[in-house]
Each structure stands twice: as C-alpha cells, then as structure tokens.
C-alpha cells in the first residue's frame, strides 16, 4: 500500500512538473521545471528497478541538458514572447 503512495506521489510530481514546463513563459523557469521533470522521471526509473537508466537520466537530465539549455537561452532570448 505504502509503495503505491510513493509511486503515485512521483507520478503526480511528473505531471505537475510537465505542466509547469509547458506553461511557464519564462524559459529559464521552464528549464528549471524540466530539470525537476527529468529528476522525477529518474526516480520513477529507480522505483521501477532500472538503476542504469536512472543514472543515465540523472546525468543527462540534471547536468547536461539543463546546462546546454541555459547556454542556449543565454544565446537567444529568455522570455517566450507574447506576440504571434
């Protein structure tokens, strides 16, 4: 029962962070939320007994994708822009 609770919490966190990633107008915040998303999906892999994948996802999602993304934001623009 209690593992179900843990599982559900992680899945809810996934959905929330995905929604936040999409809805933020500030791309920096979106990148942060995407970092949380990949962290939580790594936890989900961990719970589903895939530690290799969890390390991989943590390394990529936490460290590198966020870093590359922030450099890209720095090189482009930070806000999404309201105009069509």
């Amino acid at each position: 029962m209690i593992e179900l609770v843990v599982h559900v919490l992680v899945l809810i966190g996934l959905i929330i962070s995905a929604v936040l990633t999409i809805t933020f107008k500030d791309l920096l915040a979106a990148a942060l939320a995407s970092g949380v998303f990949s962290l939580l999906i790594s936890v989900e892999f961990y719970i589903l007994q895939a530690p290799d994948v969890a390390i991989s996802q943590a390394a990529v999602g936490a460290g590198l994708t966020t870093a590359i993304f922030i450099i890209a934001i720095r090189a482009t623009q930070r806000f999404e822009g309201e105009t069509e």
Partner: protein
Amino acid sequence: MFLNLPYVTVVLLTCLGIAAILFKRNLLKILLGINILESAVNLLIIAIGYREGGVAPIYTLAPSTNMVLPTPQALVLTSIVIGVATSALLLSFSIIIYRKYGTVNVNLIRELRE
C-alpha cells in the same frame, strides 16, 4: 498492485508533449515538448519491462528468478543518448537561427514558404 498508473501517466505526458509541440510558438519550448514526449516513451518502455515485485537485473545476491526484463533498459539507455544528442543539435540550430533572424518564434521563421 500499482494498477496501470504508469501507463496512464504515459498517456497524459504524451498529450502534454504533443500540446507543447503544437500550441507553443517558441523553438526552445517545442524542444522541451519533444523532450517530454521522449521521456514518455522511455517511461512506457521501462514500464513494459517491469515485473511485479521484481528486482533489478543485477546479480548482487543469490540468483533470483523474479528479475525485471533487461532489454527495455538497454533500449532506453540508447534512447536517452539519442535524446541528448537531439537536444544539443536542435539547440545549436536555434542559436544560429536567432543569430540570423533575431527571433526564435516559429511564426517569424518563415522565409521559406510557397
């Protein structure tokens, strides 16, 4: 035991990713949508390979018969690497686009039409 919650999550994440791809106008946001979509597929593959009460496919203790399937993990490893490579390439394209066009809004990146 866990019902089919991971699969439901996969469906929801897929919808969110597609929504980000189709409704957002910013290239970097579209990239984030693609990332979410990829993560959804990865989660689906891992969830397919899960066995109730299984342990990781690493022989740390005595041999156990109830291990989760190893192939999905191998597939997802490959898929994650492909995801990071995709992100890197797409972001560098975006940087060049911004340098040339002054924007990353897809509605304004349309010199090639008709």
